[in-house]
């Protein structure tokens, strides 16, 4: 039975819709994974040198023992964000005449066969076999290594429990982040190294070889508890948080002044608030409002004469991050209800104009929120104002038009971490014009006249874009109307 399950899992992974539909995204993730893997190998082979040189410790073994706890906190964090809860597969099996406990055992055991579970093994094996073995002997070094790997398994079970129990809601994300930050802060200010909690365990594992057995027992115990929890809750509605969405009201009053287009903008705003993926895009955009602090607040940049050039780029993002981030998947957000817009007269036109209105409004709010950066100088406020005008006059149309190139459907209820659904070649290339075009206007005027004239040029071009916004959005509308059958067919996923 287990072998049958494994065969099914294999078939599912090679026939996965997201892989075949989104080859580019998968290649990108694969490449990223490969780079991380190379880094881990590199770190594993040079661990002794790194600890001695970078962390200035002359007793690497002791140093590792004292800091393993921090690594486990980090492991908890990345496992939490990147690892999937195995319950997603439950639905297909529950109705079959197979023991529930067997299914749960299978799902849980399979979940541990993940690249995350061997990171610590790869990371510490070279060090254990060379350094630890030369001091404490081969048996002790293996006991030490086993202890670390088994601890990493315990973390795995804990993450699964935490994630199933609390979901990846905003609250649990905040809790996880605070634990991580607290850990870093405690170490940074030398209040206390949280690592001492587990330090004796690993130190002892070098002397008494039964420690791994104890840890293994703990791991089995955690597994069993998790197993009991899953078995008790192995019902569809309890483990998969799909059907429970709480009602959020969020109309923006002033948008209704714009008639049908305002109504469309309001609809889009509700869409953003009521889906997981769009909410996280909004959240990321809010974080980007602080992007300026890194540059403006940094004394090395403040004195660098080349900084104003870079500030153009920073200001583009600070005032326009939402429309760039969210706008790059322009129509994919509406892929589930595209026929709704198709079947209304002027539906597609008002959809695009509504989004335009919303992007402009949100950019305006971002601009207002970033006014306090004036603290770092009036020049920054002027740069923001110029780029704000440029963004809503010109950049916005670039984003919309590029995003209309072969839009792909996506599921808005999946999180956005490592989720490449809806991303195609256009989304990868989009960043180039975003960066190049403002500079292509600013730099000539800057060299011919001055920095201020360069900014003024951006502002003036932007203002023209705003004046002619009707005509400019019409370009996108016409394109969409022309391509409506192709887009709607791909959104209905019939191809």
């Amino acid at each position, binding site marked *: 039975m287990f072998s049958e399950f494994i065969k099914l899992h294999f078939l599912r992974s090679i026939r996965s819709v997201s892989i075949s539909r989104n080859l580019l995204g998968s290649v990108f993730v694969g490449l990223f994974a490969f780079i991380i893997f190379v880094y881990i190998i590199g770190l594993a082979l040079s661990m002794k040198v790194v600890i001695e040189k970078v962390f200035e410790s002359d007793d690497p073994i002791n140093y590792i023992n004292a800091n393993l706890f921090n690594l486990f906190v980090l492991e908890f964090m990345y496992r939490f964000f990147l690892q999937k809860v195995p319950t997603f597969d439950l639905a297909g099996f529950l109705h079959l005449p197979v023991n529930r406990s067997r299914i749960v055992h299978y799902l849980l055991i399979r979940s541990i066969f993940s690249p995350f579970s061997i990171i610590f093994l790869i990371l510490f094996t070279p060090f254990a076999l060379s350094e630890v073995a030369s001091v404490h002997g081969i048996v002790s070094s293996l006991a030490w290594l086993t202890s670390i790997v088994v601890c990493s398994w315990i973390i795995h079970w804990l993450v699964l429990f935490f994630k199933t129990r609390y979901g990846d809601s905003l609250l649990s994300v905040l809790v996880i982040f605070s634990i991580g930050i607290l850990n870093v802060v405690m170490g940074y200010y030398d209040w206390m190294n949280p690592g001492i909690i587990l330090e004796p365990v690993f130190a002892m594992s070098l002397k008494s070889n039964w420690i791994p057995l104890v840890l293994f027992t703990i791991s089995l115990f955690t597994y069993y508890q998790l197993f009991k929890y899953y078995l008790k809750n192995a019902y569809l509605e309890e483990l998969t948080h799909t059907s429970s969405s709480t009602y959020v009201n969020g109309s923006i009053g002033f948008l209704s002044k714009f008639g049908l287009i305002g109504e469309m903008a309001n609809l889009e705003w509700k869409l953003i608030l009521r*889906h997981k993926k769009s909410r996280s895009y909004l959240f990321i955009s809010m974080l980007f409002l602080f992007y300026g602090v890194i540059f403006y607040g940094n004394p090395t940049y403040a004195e660098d004469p080349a900084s104003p050039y870079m500030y153009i780029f920073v200001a583009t993002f600070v005032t326009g991050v939402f429309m760039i981030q969210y706008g790059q998947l322009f129509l994919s957000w509406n892929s589930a209800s595209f026929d709704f817009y198709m079947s209304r007269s002027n539906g597609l036109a008002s959809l695009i104009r509504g989004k335009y209105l919303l992007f402009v409004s949100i950019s305006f709010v971002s601009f207002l929120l970033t006014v306090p950066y004036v603290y770092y100088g009036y020049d920054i406020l002027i740069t923001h104002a110029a780029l704000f005008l440029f963004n809503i006059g010109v950049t916005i149309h670039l984003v919309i038009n590029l995003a209309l190139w072969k839009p792909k459907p996506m599921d808005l209820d999946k999180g956005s971490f490592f989720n490449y659904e809806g991303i195609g070649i256009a989304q990868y290339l989009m960043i180039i014009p975003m960066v190049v075009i403002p500079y292509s206007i600013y730099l000539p005027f800057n060299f011919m006249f001055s920095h201020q004239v360069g900014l003024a040029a951006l502002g003036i071009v932007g203002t023209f874009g705003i004046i002619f916004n009707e005509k400019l959005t019409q370009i996108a509308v016409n394109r969409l109307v022309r391509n409506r*059958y192709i887009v*709607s067919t791909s*959104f209905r996923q019939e191809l």
Partner: protein
Amino acid sequence: MIKIKNLKKVYKQVTVLDISELEILRNESFGLVGNNGAGKTTLFRILLDLVRATEGTVYIEDFDVSKDENWKKRVGSYLDEHMLLSYLTPTEYFETLRKIYEMSETDLDQHLAKFSGFFNDEILGKKKYIRDLSKGNLKKVGIAAAMMGNPQIIILDEPFENLDPSSQVRLKKLIDAEKKANKTTFLISSHDLTHVTEICDRIVLLEKGKILKDMKDSKEKMTAVLHDYFVGS
């Protein structure tokens, strides 16, 4: 009212729809039947300009549907949940449509009042998004939305599917009332032969994209023909 000329749809060299001529008159109740894959939904999608025809044209009141948009104000439709905004509550959705159709609040209230029995207190005033509704309730929202704004033509794909028996009866009454009050043209596809023969005065049977039978006979005769085709004798 609706004219179809030389309509063809080809997917990857397979012809899924091939109708040389079909005319649907005003106030006609037009039923579309056929086995899975007969081309019913494809026909409706082309009528509504959601899918491009490989060849041929659909005219609604002499306008080519793929060239002009004015007909959309006169046509209400519900084919599947792609036509809803799943992240709204039903109340918000109707409110949005009210603004799109430029109806007054009283008009909307009157319209929804007609559906109070059909909705069975499960649709309106609940803080539940459309995406969380059951299949039957989704259908109810879609049907009520399709009938909004006094359309002259209403197109419904499998309207009886997923509805409980009492809702099916209520829906038939709603359709009858709408026909009497506004002389609305209905286009309905269904697998339920009893319902479709009861509501429709004309039934077209599709097979592999082609019109096999086009009947305007008595209910009994149409029932007999359909029974022969689907069940065999």
